[in-house]
Structures are given as C-alpha cells and as structure tokens.
C-alpha cells in the first residue's frame, strides 16, 4: 500500500505539472486583462492539430518548436479582432465571448480535420518506461515535466527581469497607473495574451503525444486548470503552480482509495480552499474584484 501511495503521489506530481503549464497561460491572461478565457482549451486543441498537420514535414521536434508560436499568432489575431473591444467592460462580456469561441474552435477543428481522432506518434525512445518498477515514468512524461520546468523558469525570468515582464506584473497590480506612465497598454495586453496562448499551444502539442487528439480534447483539461488557479489564488503565478501540483496529487491519491471520485476530488479541494481561504492559498485579497 505504501508503494502504491508513493507511486500515485509521484504520478500526481507529473499530472499536476501538465495542469500547471496550461493554468499558467490562463492565469497570465486573467491577471492582466481580466479575461476568463474559456477558449483556452480550444487553443490547446489548435496547437495539437497544427502539430499533427506539420509533423510529416518537420517531425515531432520541429512541430514542438513551430506549433506553439503559430497558435500564439492565431491567438494574437483573435485578441486583436474579438477581445480587445471588450477590455474595460464587465469581465462577463469576455467570458461569454470566449465561451462561444470555445464552441466555434471545437466545431472549426471538427470541420477541418474531421470528428475522428488523429494518431500522433512520438519518438520511439520517449514512448518507453524508464524502468520496470517505475513503469509510469516514461521518457515522454519525464520530457513533459522537463519542458514544464524550463517553461516555468523562463516565464519567471521573463516576468522578473525583462522590461515586458516588469510591465506585465505592474499592469496586473494597477493597469491605469502603468498606462499613465506612457506604457502602450494595448500592446502589453496583446503580447501577454500571445504568451498565454503560446503556453496553450505548447500544452496541446505535448498532450497530443500522450492523449488522443480529437476536437474535444481541451474540454477535459480546461477545468483542472481553472481549479488550479482558484486553489492557488487568482493573481498569483506561484499559486497557480502550487494549485496545479496539489490537484494532480489529490486526484492521484483518490484513485487509490475511491477511483470514481478522482475527478470530483478536485472540486472538493476547491470548495474547501474557498471556504477556509477565499483568496486561494497564495492569492492576494481583492484580486479580480
């Protein structure tokens, strides 16, 4: 039993790491622009399908490099045309827009690539377990964790040490003052949105290697990401990181004792955190109000 628990905690951390990648993109967009991006799962799917389409020409590694920026470019166009006019309005407007957009993206992918799932092949050496005992740690899953760690580190550097990052962080706290200081807030929001969608695209390419690539793939991955943000605390990127890992572990542990509740446990965890600490574990009071 101890071994089983240990395995599931480790496995939960791996699953949680993936949630983190997706949740960070959502969190970036939410924090700066107050946009609750329900279409994030849709962008994830777009990233996966772009990778599927270009893989025969550029291979898996090429697709991993090219698909996320292409997804970000699509995200940038969507932001410019559809979301930008809604900044400054009640967040409900952008929520409704992205909610509808999620359906449009899902149907769009179904129209272009068909309803049937597509086979995505990963390099053979990644598709093997690293050891007989730790069979659930495959080369691909380890690679995913490494990608998440590098991405989080790069994001940290971007937000901490670059002019763009400092402006994004300042904008998260007080966008009006940042604007008054002469920063082009429109551009800032666009770039921030593009970074968020880049992370969705990257998540899509990685997910397609492990899961079935089909138009509804993003739906099942979106809610855990939202829960990760709420549990960790809206407005806090370290909180999102913690939230993602926590729900991954909670889900893995529940699968040992009560498998049918392994999804529901995430919602229970969210409810408990909201009851005890409504701002989330690392969130600051008053964010998004």
């Amino acid at each position, binding site marked *: 039993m101890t071994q089983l628990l240990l395995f599931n905690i480790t496995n939960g951390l791996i699953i949680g790491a993936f949630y983190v990648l997706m949740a960070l993109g959502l969190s970036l967009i939410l924090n700066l622009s107050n946009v609750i991006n329900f279409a994030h799962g849709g962008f994830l799917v777009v990233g996966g399908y772009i990778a599927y389409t270009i893989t025969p020409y550029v291979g898996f590694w090429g697709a991993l490099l090219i698909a996320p920026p292409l997804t970000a470019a699509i995200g940038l166009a969507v932001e410019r045309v559809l979301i930008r006019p809604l900044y400054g309005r009640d967040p409900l407007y952008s929520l409704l827009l992205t909610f509808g957009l999620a359906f449009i993206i899902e149907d769009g992918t179904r129209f272009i690539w068909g309803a049937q799932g597509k086979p995505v092949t990963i390099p053979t050496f990644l598709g093997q377990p690293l050891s007989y005992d730790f*069979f659930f740690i495959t080369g691909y899953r380890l690679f995913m964790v490494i990608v998440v760690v590098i991405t989080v580190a790069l994001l940290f550097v971007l937000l901490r040490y670059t002019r763009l990052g400092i402006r994004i962080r300042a904008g998260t706290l007080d966008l009006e003052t940042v604007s008054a200081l002469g920063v082009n807030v429109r551009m800032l929001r666009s770039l921030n949105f593009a970074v968020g969608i880049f992370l969705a695209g990257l998540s899509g390419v990685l997910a397609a290697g492990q899961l*079935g690539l089909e138009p509804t793939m993003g739906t099942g991955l979106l809610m855990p990401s939202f829960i990760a943000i709420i549990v960790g605390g809206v407005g806090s990127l370290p909180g999102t990181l913690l939230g993602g890992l926590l729900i991954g572990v909670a*889900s893995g542990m529940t699968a040992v004792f009560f498998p049918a509740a392994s999804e529901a446990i995430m919602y229970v965890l969210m409810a408990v955190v909201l009851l005890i600490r409504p701002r989330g574990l690392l969130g600051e009071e008053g964010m998004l109000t």
Partner: protein
Amino acid sequence: MTTPTFSDKFDRRTIIKGAAAAGVLQVASPFIIKARGETPIRIGMVDPLTGNFAATGQNEVAGAKLAIEQINSKGGIIGRPTELLVEDSASDVGIGVQKARKLIDRDQVTFLIGDVNSAIAQALAQITNEKRMLHIVSGGHTDPITGKDCKWNVYRVCNTTRMECNSVADILFKKYGKKWHFITPDYAFGHTLQQGFEINLKRLGGTMTGNELTPLGTTDYSAYLIKARATSPDVLIVLPQGDAMVNCLKQIVQFGLHKQMAIAGAQQELESLEALPPEARIGIWMFEWYWKQPGVPHVQEFVAEIRKRNGGKVPTARHWFGYTSAMTFALVANREKTIDSVKLAQALGDFELPAEVKLQPNKCYYRKGDHQLMTSAFVGEAQSSGKDDPEDLYRVDQVIAGDTTSPPVSETGCTLQWPT
C-alpha cells in the same frame, strides 16, 4: 381571311368552363394528384454529431443516409418518398430528449432512430413509448434497452453488452488467463459491460483482481493503471469507449503494460483504432461488424458505396448500424403496406434481414421476445497496420452468430407490454 385573335379563341365562358373542368379533374382523379403531391415519410434520427461520440454518431448518420438514397431509388416506403431528419444530441441526455421531442412534435416524423450513447437511447425509448412510435436504437448497447426496460415499440440493432462479453469471455479465459482486472467507465454502458464479464468469469471459475470505475470524460488513466498493475492480473479488460479508449490504450502501451499482461475488452471500433498510433493498436476484442468479409454477398457493394461518399474511407460498424436501422423501417413497412407503429412493431418480431442488408455470413433477425437483433460478433485482434489496405486494422478470427452470444429471452428480464 381574318386571323383569329386571342379573344376569338378564348372568350370568358371558355375560360370559366376550363377552370371548372380543372377543378373537377382535381376531385375526379385523386390518385394522379396524390402521387405527385404525396407528403414524404419522415424518419427522425438523434445522434451525437458533436461532443465525445461525434465520430461514431456521424458515421451512423452517413449509413442511414445511404439507406434513404437506396430506399427512394426503389420507390420509397409504401410508394411515398422518404426523408431523413437528423438532429445532434451532442452526447447530452437533456439535449437528446429535447431534439427527439422537436422531431416528433414539430417535424412529425413517423419513426425514430438513435442514439450512440446508452443513456440517451434509454431516454429516447421513454419518449417514443409515450408517443407510441416505432423506434430503433442504432448504437446504445446497455442491456436494459432490450432487457428489463424493454418496450413494445423499441428494437435494437447493435449488440447488448452481455452479447459482447459472451463473445470474447471464453477465448480470453482459455488463452490468456483467469485473473482479470477491469477499467470500467462509470455510466450505464460500462456497468452492464463489467457485469456481463463478471457473470462469465464466475461461470468459468476465474477471479476478478479489481475494477477501476473511471468518470466519463477521463483523460489521464495513469493512476488507474498503476493500481491495476499492482494486482498483477493476467488480463486487463479495457471497457471505456471512443476517445477514452484511445487515451487509455495509448497510456497502456507507453507504460509497457501490454508486455506484462494481455490487453482485451469487449467492443472495439475502427474509429478508435484509426485514432491510435500503430504501436497502440493492440488487444483482443470483438467488432460488431467488419468491412472485410471475403465471399460474403453484398458486402463489397456496401463498402464501395460508403467509400464513394466517405472520401475513400471504408465503412465501420456504425455505418452499418445506421444503414440497417433505416433499412429495417422500409423493409417491414413495404412488406406490411402500412406505417402504423403497432402493426410494424408486431411484424418485426422474428423478422429476418435479407442478405443485402445483413451483410454478414450468419442469420440475422430481430428476436420476438426482447426485440434485440441477433447479429454476429466478429472476434479477433487489433493489428498495427493493414497488409492489403491501410484501413484493415483488425484480424477477424471468428464470426459468432448473435443467437449464440445472446442469453435466452428468459434471462434478459424483458417482458413486453403491448398497447391495448
């Protein structure tokens, strides 16, 4: 000589007489007019075109459309043209019910087909029973539809979950071992499927090492697979369907579990195998219909017709379900020369499908006692790639007749209550 003008040829009285004659003609020759203006017979179809089961739902619709084309080319149903009205259930019970009511109340359909999702199919059966409408469940497998919840107006084309289990259980036990572990989707279909395997396992004297109830829409199976492997089963029975099946099999192969235990299950579908990378096309399964049946009459024609309409792709079992469902209405209505649901439901009891519709070697008929189609099980193994055709992803080892895999009516729990 003067040329006659319009007014010379057609005066007012002539026009009035002509109009009167035309009016009389309408009444005096109703058959001619009726044949031209006959209202079409409408068949409603509720299936998921979006959501989790969209691929299978769309294929059922494509099969039904082909049937409607063929029905109309042969004179329609009792001489009337036939239309197919399709609604998307979006894999959601509430939406499915709403769409069925729209088809019945507003569009005035005569018959109904649907749904891929067992829970929706059960809900639709309730509605069609209220409305006294003949209904064929094309692709919802859960047992109660033709078991304890059977209804006089509801017939089913696809197998029951029990038939599926019965078709593979003996082979799995004899060839692969007696300790089984289940990955079971947590809804009606999964529960009855596991129950069917458990009955067989008990009969054969095997043991169940455990079961993992996975919520609908589960994407990551790693936690369940860790638990399953810890029990060291001989056979891992994988019961999720559609996208869930794809996710589960991909993870099983990446974890190398297929090298440590046999991977098997009941129903497998070409839609799922095509969505898997070659290395993950593994396992022992049953197909409910397969496109490659050398020497079986009319199968090649059907495959060619679907290929023409499906971008060159072969038909799946779902195409055949949709096709057979629509064809059944036409066959029985044309034989009985009526569209009365009660009369047709009675006539369908023990109704045998002709060779050009059954498309399989064994006898295929609707059993009178529970309204279940006695259709074959194609038992075999998934293969990573086709030898002659890239879509030949399954090797059929046995084709078992439906009345061999199905439990007798007395064991299904079905008692049909006919309207007075």
